[in-house]
Each structure stands twice: as C-alpha cells, then as structure tokens.
C-alpha cells in the first residue's frame, strides 16, 4: 500500500468558451436584406466576402472577434461598390468576369489583415509614449515628497547618490 504511487488526479479543464462577435449573424442578416435590393448584389457579396468567411471559420485565439470585425469591415468596404455595380448592370457575371474586380474585393480584405497586424504595433508605440509621460509625472511627484519629507520617505536612511535620481526615468 505504502509503495503504491499515488495517481495524479486528472485535471479536467473547462473548454474555453468561443468568443462571440455577432459579426457572422450580422452578415447573414445583411445578405438577407440585400436580397430585397438585388439578387445579383447578394451573389457579389457572397463571392466578395469569402476571405472574411474563411477567417470566421479558421480564426482562433484571443481577440478573434476584433480581428474578424476588422477584416470584415474592410472587406465589405471593398465589396460594397461592386454590389451596386452588379445591381445597375443587372448581371453579377459581368462584375465577377473582370479579375481586377475580384482582386479589388479580396485586396480590401488584405488591407483588413494588414490592419490586424499593424494595429498592435502602433498601439504599443503609443502606449510606450504614454508610459514615459506617466513616469515623468511619477518622478516629479516623488521628488515633491522628497522635498517635503527628505529621502526617508523613500525608505532610505541616508541621502542617496544624486545620480541615482536619473533612474526615476528610464
């Protein structure tokens, strides 16, 4: 009995709930409404938003909803003029027949992907700037406390090295 190894308990992890963006149902509703406008336009939309649909099915990880919405909005921005064009021409084949049109619709989705990639980089840059500003303010606040209460307020018994103050701001 004593030699029996204790079995490690099976840890059952709860499956993470999928993020729900609501963008998929919105697209379906949008397509249904577009059908009242024009069937051709709906077909163009269905062909044009394929990159978004693919992302909707294949996308995973954190911020999936944001990514999907980002790609979806740019993709729709690229598809929308061609939907109107298909309605005016009365045939969706003439629009799809021009490969440039397809490239423009899918290109707009690519721009969305680019935004997904660039957005966090830009945000990191901006946040870093904000942090630096806050650090300067903190240093000023601490200096005000030191001026009023001496260095003891920092928890030091002795006066610190004056150069050490530079460390307040990285």
């Amino acid at each position, binding site marked *: 009995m004593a030699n029996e190894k204790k079995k490690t308990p099976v840890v059952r992890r709860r499956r993470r709930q999928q993020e729900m963006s609501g963008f998929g149902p919105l697209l379906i509703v949008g397509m249904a409404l577009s059908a009242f406008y024009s069937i051709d336009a709906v077909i163009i939309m269905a062909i044009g938003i394929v990159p978004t649909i693919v992302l909707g099915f294949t996308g995973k990880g954190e911020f999936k909803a944001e990514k999907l919405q980002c790609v979806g909005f740019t993709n729709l*921005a690229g598809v929308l003029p061609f939907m109107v064009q298909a309605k005016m021409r009365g045939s969706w084949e003439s629009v799809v027949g021009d490969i440039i049109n397809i490239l423009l619709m899918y290109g707009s989705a690519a721009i969305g992907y680019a935004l997904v990639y660039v957005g966090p980089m830009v945000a990191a840059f901006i946040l870093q700037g904000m942090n630096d500003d806050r650090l300067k303010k903190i240093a000023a606040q601490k200096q005000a406390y030191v001026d009023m209460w001496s260095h003891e307020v920092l928890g030091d018994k002795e006066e610190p090295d004056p150069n050490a103050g530079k460390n307040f701001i990285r």
Partner: protein
Amino acid sequence: MSGEIAPVPDTQSAFGDRYEVITGSPLPEFSTRGGDAYSAKDKQKSGGDIYALVHHPSIPIRNEVYKSLKNKPVGNLICPINRGLMNLHLNGRKVQRLVTIFGRPTGGALLSPDGQLNPRVNANRLRANVALSILKAITALHKRGFTHRSIMPHNVYFSTPNSDDVVVGECYSMPPGYMQPFAMEPLDTAIADGTGRGIGDVTSDYYQMGATMSALYFGEEIWKGRNRDSMLMARVNQGSYWALSGGREIPGALGTLIRGLTADEVEERWGAEDVLDWFEGVGKPKRTTMRAWSMNRPTNFKGVAVVDRRLLAHAFARDPAEAANFLKSVDFPSWVQMSFRDEILTDRLESLLNVKPDSGFGGMRSDDYKMVARVCMFLHPTGPIHFKDHSFFLDGIPSMIAEAFSRDDRESLSAIVELLDSKFLQSLADISEMQGVKVGSKMADLRRMMPFAGNKQLGKGMERVLYELNPILPCVSQRFSNVWIGSILQLMRAMERVATNGTIRNVLLDRHLAAFCATHGVDLEREFNNLMAAQHNPAKFNSLSLNFFGLLQQRCKMEALPGLTSKLVDGLTPAVKGLKNKKRREQVQAALEKSKKGGDIAKLVNEVNMVKIQAEDAREFAKARTAVSRLDRERTKLLKKVQPHDPEARKTGLRGSRAVAFAAFFLVGFLTFFG
C-alpha cells in the same frame, strides 16, 4: 546618577539676611540628632539670646510641634522663634539648609555632652526645681497632644547662670524617641530600633523624666558603658529603676519619685497628678504588683533557659532563623499550653499565629520570618514588631525609612516592602488586639502606602512611601545635596539654577525627584507613567519633560525660568530634528527660538505642543510613505517596455484597427450610395 548637583542660590533669603549663624561657634550642648547648633545673632532685634539649629535633610522634623510652639510658646521648654532657608558655609562648602532659631538658655546643660555634671545640680535643686520645671514643660506639651520623647540629662538647661529655673530642650528637630539611648526609653520602646520607636505616649515622657532625674542624681551618663543585652536583662529581671541606678539606692523623696516615674508597667508609672501629689508631700507609693510576664515553664532557646516572655521574644528576634527552626521543631499548641497556663490558645489565635511544623525542605523561607514575627507579637504584644533583624513600631516606620534612605540601606528597605503586606500586618494587629493592645488605627496610613511600596514605576516605590509618610522631608536626591527642596516651587527654582549652570538631562528619571513631585503635586502620576514609557526615546522624553515643567510652572504660578526654558528647548533638538516634514521642522524651530527667550514654559507648551506635533508629523509621514510606495509600484509596472504582443497593446491595437476598418466601410458605403 546623570545630571548635576543643584547649586546654592546666589542671594541670601530674607530669613538669611535677618539672622547671622556663626558657624565658627558651634554649640554641641544644643545639637541633636536632627541638626547641629550654632551661635546666632538677630540683626533686626537686639536683646534675647538665641541659637540656630541647622537641620540635617535626611531626618524628618515634627512640623506640627513647630507650628504649635511658634504660635504659642510653652514655659520651661526651648521653643522655636523662627525658621527659614539660609545659605551657609559648612565644612568648607556652601550649602542651603533649613535653620531654626531658638531662644537660648544661658545657664548651661545640667549634664554636658562630655558627661560633666553642672556644679549647680544637687539633690535639693533636683527635688525643688528640676522635677517641677520638667513636669510643667511636658504637661503643657501633652495638653497640646504632643509627646516630648527627648528628655535627656544633657537636654535640660538652667535658663540663666544665676537662676534655678530649668528649661527642657527642644523636641521638634527629630522624630520622637529617635536614637535615644536604650536606658532612656521605656522598656517596650527601648527594645525597638533607635530609628523606629514611634510616637509613644505621655507615659514615655514620664519615664524619660525619671531616667533623667536618676542620671542627674548620680551625675553620670547612666547608659554609657552598659551592654544593651545585659541592660535589657537587668531591666526585665530587676526593673528599670534598679537597672538604671546600677543597684544603688536613691534615698528619700527623690528616690520615691524616680522609682514611680521609672516603673516599667504603664499602669504603675507615675503621671502628672502623682508627681504633684509627691511635690506636695501627700503622695503615697503607687507601686503594687508587677504584671506577670513570666512563663510557667522556662523555654530553652539556644542553650539558655528563658523565663520572661519579653526576653524570649527578643531572643527570637535576634536570631529569626534559629527561632523558626525551634518553632517548627516543637508541638506549638502543647508548648503554648505548657508555657502559658493562664492563657488559652484559641483556634483563631492558633490560625493567626500559623506555626507550621517543619516541612522538611530546609532553609529559611520568607514566610518563616513572618511566622517568627507573629510569635514575637504573641509573646510581647506591647512591644515592637520584630521582622528580619529589625524591631520597630508601626508609627516608627516613617523615620525608619528616612534613616534607611540616608544610609542607602537597601536591605532594610526591602524588609519594609515585605512587611507592607496587608494580610501580614492585619494578622499582627489581630494578635496584639487579642492580647488587649490596640494597633489598628496606626495601620490606616500604611495601608495607603501598600500599592506604592513594591511598585517600580517612576513616582512610586519606596521613595514615594518615604515622602508620603514624611511630608515635611525635603527631597533627598543626591542632585539636591547642597540645597533644601521642601516644595515644588523650590524644586523648580533649583532646576532653574541647575539649568543655568549645567545640564538637566534625564533629570525627571531621578526616582527621588519623581516621588517628591508625585507626593507634593496633584495628579502627576499619568505624566510620570508617560515619561517612564518614553525613557528610551530621547525625542519624546524631552517633549514630555517640557510639558511636565510647563505644567508645574503654570500650577505654581511661577516667574519666568529662562535657564530651564533654554535647556528644555535645547533638549528638544533631537525631537525637532526627528520631525520629518522639513517645512514643519523649520516652523517649529523658529517658534521655539522665539519662545525660548521669554522663559515661560507653559506658554511655550501652548504655542508649540511638541507631543501633538510629533504625532501629527508621524501620521502624515506614514501617509506619504504609503503614497510613495504606491507610486513605486506603478513605476515598476511602467518601466517594462511595451511590446506589440502584450495583451494590452494587442487589445488596444485591434480595437483601433477595427475602428479604422469600420470608418473605411462607413465612408465607402456613404460615397457609394450618396456620392
């Protein structure tokens, strides 16, 4: 001891200006245990011989006696005329002492301090003048509720060189019976230590009168060269009259008088009426039977067969360890039954005496001393309490404590602390009351002292007991060895002088000073508790010292004390330096410097309440520390470089991108439909 000795005031008091004490002309015949006598002159009033008694600070005086005799002098008694503090040069050093001026008899002492009999003393004068003069003096004192207790042959004087009138020396400069020779005290009080004989009663004065007459008749110091133990044996076995006279008969009426006055039993001792009857020749011998102090069977203690129970009590008291062993070894109830057949050892008395047989653990225990004390009280109920090599009466404890402090006798003081036990004292009182001697009323003062005695706190302890029981005693701290501190006002002035000439650091930690202040001040105990708690924190201690002196200055409505104020402010330097807030520190320093010059400590305390300021500073500093540590935590968080893959950056970035995408979609849609 830290700190310095208080210097003597530069200026002489009004009393000192009026009287001149000629320290180069001592008068040993007027000196007492309480002070040294010197010739004196009254500069304002010529005529009338006076002498000055320079009091010793460690010996309590009888203040009520002074007040009574000064207001209404008594005939045939040296009475005080005036008293006050005076600067004197004694033994090559300048000191401030209490000096009492007395009217001086010029006829000389009846027996000089070196034992020479005044040639004018003879049996006729003793019979015709001395007896009546002494009687007049002591009866007048007794009418005022005082006893003299210092009637000695060299303390009785002819009033003038040619007069037969006799005056008795003063009795106010020391406690009653203080350090009187064994032979000159009645048997019960004589057995007690010289410092703890208590107030006694009027019969003690008559005994002293008789003993004095005896010494004067024989013209010698009858107590000199006599061993205390042999004298005690002689007094117990033959009676004091024969013991004092050394077996010599005093013939005639004088012998009858002395025999009556020196009777050992209080009931048989002559009083004022008996002496007057004797003087008028109508008296008849009162002496009848002696009270039976003898035991029915002698007790062998340390190889000596003792018959008298007073002697047995004394023998037990001389060797309490051996006495304890003896009491444990005997069957106590049987021993009492056999030795005292006339007495019944009741259950209550037996439980009060609480003599337990030897438990076999050996060695002397604290309880054994108490057991011996109880048995001694049972054996000699009119005698003193015998406890731990000390014999004393309850009302003699104040002077005994004063004497123990003057010798710094810690052993005696610890014995008194042990004695001040309510249960023990009550058992002693009960034992003596069961034997018909009342002592209960003497315990009231001692009961009040019990909470102080064993307490180590500042302002309490035996020092407090000393000043509470001897309210007239000056502060006997070594710091004040040169000066006489009889009140808080004098203490404050002495502190001002100390401050002007030196340092007052830690002065309030002086136990004597604290106890004196606590006794003579009102509600100062809380202050001393705070001071004691802060004694290891100089900044707080000095702040509290400032508050304390401010309080005293305000209560005494004193003049400005610039020296003390300056030193107290200097003492606050660590407290001010300890203030964390720089601005506050500068403000407080400026306020202190401003107030320092005024010398008004109370005002300074009102303007700069250091204790409050320190508390406020500490509170705000703690708040600042919390804020700084919060900033530190935030800074640490912000110091980390923000990366695009950081969740925060990703979240913000993606939401931003989504917003851009939506704006593009909205713009394209608008242009498509409305452009």
